[in-house]
């Protein structure tokens, strides 16, 4: 068991996502930062899809009720275990009754905390991902709070064998990134002037943003076709333009269908980077790429992630 001592503003259990039910209106959910989620799980020797904690927006503290192996990943957070600073993106051995915490110290919104054995909350519709609009992943439907106990799976390997594994590879996290996009199915609904504006401008993330979508502040975009589309399938990364012309980027909890025109979609490699842009202050620029480059880049990123994990030799320990 893991006990929450202090929950962050939004702490939830997320596995890689609830697949297979979108045709019934059930969102995929899952991590806001799929790169950090995958890295943390692989570092502790879990399957990449295992359920982990997603810690959003602020600091969190935990108490281990048993010996366990953890890894924390994500920009802007630091890890302290039993009052000692530890590396992020590294498997760390934690003893029973030790406290550890993730402190939000820099730019970034979401940290993943993975534990060897995986979080073992009940499966609902085949997944442990949390969708707080209803009791999917959390019953009652609320974020995790102080005193909550998180069940952990039994170890499948001796924990000390995996301790100190680390991953030097990082995404290009940045508070002011260039986010790559490919054209959306309704790009022809937008004037050439609007498209030029979109690619030439900077946008910031509105505080009304959440796990469902990031609303962007910046120049409004004009449509050539008014009126609504028939509802059709949607996916995370799509950028919808509603009547007010301000872009909304679909995120992990986005609805499965929508009726606003989709101008572009954020490529998978850029999605975690965008998710971690600081609300209000971070400045985003968009750049167009091709689907071929997007998919090749995604495969390279995910395949090199696992290969980049290293097991330091005992003499390399820095503490």
């Amino acid at each position, binding site marked *: 068991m893991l006990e929450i001592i202090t929950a962050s503003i939004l702490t939830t259990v997320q596995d890689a996502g609830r697949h297979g*039910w979108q*045709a019934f209106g059930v969102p995929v959910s899952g991590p806001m930062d799929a790169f950090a989620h995958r890295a943390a799980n692989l570092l502790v020797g879990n399957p990449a899809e295992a359920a982990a904690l997603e810690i959003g927006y602020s600091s969190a503290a935990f108490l281990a009720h048993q010996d366990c192996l953890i890894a924390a990943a994500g920009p802007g957070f630091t890890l302290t275990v039993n009052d000692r600073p530890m590396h992020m993106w590294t498997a760390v051995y934690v003893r029973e009754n030790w406290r550890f915490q993730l402190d939000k110290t820099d730019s970034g919104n979401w940290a993943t905390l993975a534990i060897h054995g995986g979080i073992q909350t009940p499966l609902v519709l085949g997944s442990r991902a949390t969708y707080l609009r209803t009791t999917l992943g959390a019953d009652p439907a609320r974020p995790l709070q102080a005193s909550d106990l998180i069940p952990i799976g039994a170890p499948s390997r001796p924990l000390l064998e995996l301790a100190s594994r680390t991953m030097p590879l990082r995404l290009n996290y940045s508070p002011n990134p260039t986010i790559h996009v490919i054209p959306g199915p309704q790009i022809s609904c937008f004037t050439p002037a609007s498209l030029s504006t979109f690619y030439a401008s900077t946008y910031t993330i509105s505080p009304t943003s959440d796990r469902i979508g990031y609303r962007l502040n910046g120049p409004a975009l004009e449509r050539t076709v008014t009126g609504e589309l028939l509802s059709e*399938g949607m996916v995370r*990364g799509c950028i919808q333009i509603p009547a007010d012309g301000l872009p909304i980027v679909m995120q992990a909890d986005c609805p499965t269908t929508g009726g606003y025109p989709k101008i572009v*979609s954020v490529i998978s490699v850029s999605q975690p980077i965008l998710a971690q842009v600081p609300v209000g202050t971070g400045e985003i620029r968009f750049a167009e790429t091709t689907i071929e480059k997007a998919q090749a880049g995604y*495969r390279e990123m995910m395949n090199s992630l696992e290969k980049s994990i290293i097991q330091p030799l005992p003499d390399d320990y820095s503490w």
Partner: protein
Amino acid sequence: MFSTLPLSDSASILHFGNRIDPAVNRQVHLLAAALALDPLPGVIETVPGYVSLVVHYDPLILNHAQVADWLACHSDSAESILTRPAQRIEVPVEYGGEDGLDLAFVAAYCHLTPAEVIRIHSETEYTVYMMGFSPGFAYMGKIPAALVTPRLETPRTCVHAGTVAIAGEQTGIYPIDSPGGWRLLGHTNLLPFMALRNPPFLFAPGDTILFRPERSAA
């Protein structure tokens, strides 16, 4: 029969038309069923729309050209068996009241009395065309021309689960508390979605739906 475009680098979208049309919608569901019978490793799921179909896939396994090739092989899909037989479901509704906040507006907009709105809405048989927006939300149509009313300009921040609503040619029942932009007519105690119920979802595409007034707002 359809065009194919990337929706993102992990999904493709097929378009069959641009108006709510039962024959076109049937083609969408037939293709979805045909694809499910001939699965391509790497395809995760498909999401039918009124006149569209989204195919979600894992870009670590497939690229968009491979998905397009697979789809092209199925452009002439034969009759196939849907996953569950279509059902005919009666939905008891209390029209008006706290959850029917727009009944008077719809009546005025359509130049009808509230009783006539209730009569027309409840005498029509609807087909479930697709599901989306919220877990268990079924898009039902078509609303008769006499009752077609545009949605709200600004959605309400909270519409309660069980609220019966209309917008344009569509009608539906909000399955969970959520924001909503449709015109609210009344309330049903039937819950379209419950995570731990068997079955979790009351409705599926192809179902025929009738609304039965329990008590009118007159």
